[in-house]
């Protein structure tokens, strides 16, 4: 099971997208779990649940550098979700991008 975790300031709007991504994954029977959390808890959650991919909502893109620095030892790919994909709640595209990220990271 691969875990893709989404983070924004309260984990509210990312949870909408996470739900849609989970639906897409289930539709295609992919062993993927998508969840959303508040960015404030990122370290604790990463430590406890070991996600395979971290996506930040575009509204907290200013936290990207800091997040990368914080988690540099974890070897987890981190990206900011494209704002247009995010706005259109294009779950399929975001999921695909996450898969590409995880594939690249594995190599």
């Amino acid at each position, binding site marked *: *099971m*691969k875990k893709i975790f989404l983070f*924004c*300031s*309260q984990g*509210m*709007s990312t949870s*909408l997208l996470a739900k849609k991504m989970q639906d*897409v994954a289930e539709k*295609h029977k*992919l*062993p*993927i779990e998508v969840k959303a959390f508040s960015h*404030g808890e990122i*370290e*604790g959650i990463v430590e406890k649940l070991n996600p395979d991919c971290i996506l930040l*909502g*575009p*509204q*907290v*893109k*200013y*936290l990207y550098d*800091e997040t990368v620095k914080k988690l540099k030892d974890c070897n987890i790919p981190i990206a900011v979700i494209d*704002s*247009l994909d*995010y*706005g*259109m*709640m294009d779950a399929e*595209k975001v999921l*695909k*991008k996450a*898969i*590409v990220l995880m*594939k690249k990271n594995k190599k």
Partner: protein
Amino acid sequence: MFKLLEKLLMPAAEKLGKNKILIAIRDGFLISTPLLIVGSIFLLLANFPISGWEEFWTKILGEGWDMWFVNVSRATFGIIALLSCLGTGYAYAREIKGDKIQSAAVALVSFIILMPTCISFEGVKGSGTISALAFEYVGSNGIFLALIVSVVSVKIFNWAYEKGWTIKMPNGVPPAVADSFAALIPSSIVIGFFFLIRIGFEFTTFETAHKFIYTVLQMPLQGIGNTLGAQMVYSTFGSLFWFFGINGPAVTNTIFGPIMKVLTIENLEAFQAGLPLPNIFTGPFSDFFTCYGGGGSTLSLVIVMMLFCKSKRITQLGKLSIVPGIFGINEPIIFGLPIVLNPVLIVPFIVVPSVNLILSTFATNLGIIPYTTGVALPWTTPIGFSGYLATGSLVAGLWQIGLLILGCFIYYPFIKMLDKKYLKDEEEATNSESEIEDISFEDLSAEDF
């Protein structure tokens, strides 16, 4: 112009969003938020905004039934300063990677050290002193001192810890025991420090640190926060940050959060005591009377998008955004329309909340809508209900809907401009496929996971 603004705002957001102390204060409040909401429900039950409610229950339950509920509200927002102290201490230790629970405990003790724990009274049967903590010190007017003490004590505690000023136990001692000994010297340094501060203040005219912070810092800040001007700044910056794709309130609340919290709780305490409500600009006021459907009051925009626009992109986005919008979530609009860096929409995006704010302020001053009682509701409470519950008046709910409709009129010409452009784009659209489109979920093999 936009470039210049972005140059100024981006670093500001970064600085505020990364400052460990401000993050700790913001997240520290999060710990008390669910408790405040539950406490407010009890308060609402005791004072439900229907006439005859109190008399009805007094007949059934007898005099003094409301005291049962008051106990719960005292145990929640009545001790808001203690909760903030604990929460901020915990969150700050988390930010600086210290011992979280030990830090929170030290912060709490330090705060209490600065408080009078002996209270003199005069009664019918004579006078005397009792050892007690007065609610006036642990409620809303202790919040600022609590925040300061919390940050300072955790800082000192973890500084001593890092210096290695700890008692080290030999191997074989259980870690829980070793940890408690390790906290011994840092704790005593912190406690010693606040002991001296307390004594120091007794020699001044303020007598306590509490009175000092309250007069020097809290009262002026509260006074400034409780003005239309400050609220305009708050609302405009919130919109501006969103315009650059940054979560506006997450940034502005690092500064305005504590002030609004105090103003809100003051109203709540007055409401509970049956006194006139002191403040217009509480948290619920700004949540429920300036923006509908998230930053920029975009619920109006979504309604116009659904009813009057023709381009596929806008109508689809409208359908997608209406339900989250009712609950105050509008990121789909912000990034999908987009509002981010869109020079057409920035105008109504700033104007609509400002108009709402100004009109609501006048309406409150004129007595059309009552002051907010300070009852804490989740910011996701839908329009109509939120106005009613926040003030106890149905008129306030109707007022919200009136402003929502007004917002539709302001947004209309702007979104129509964008709609025309998108319609044209869609007619000329060419499909461009990216590398992402090439992946098919069916082609993924089990080895990919």
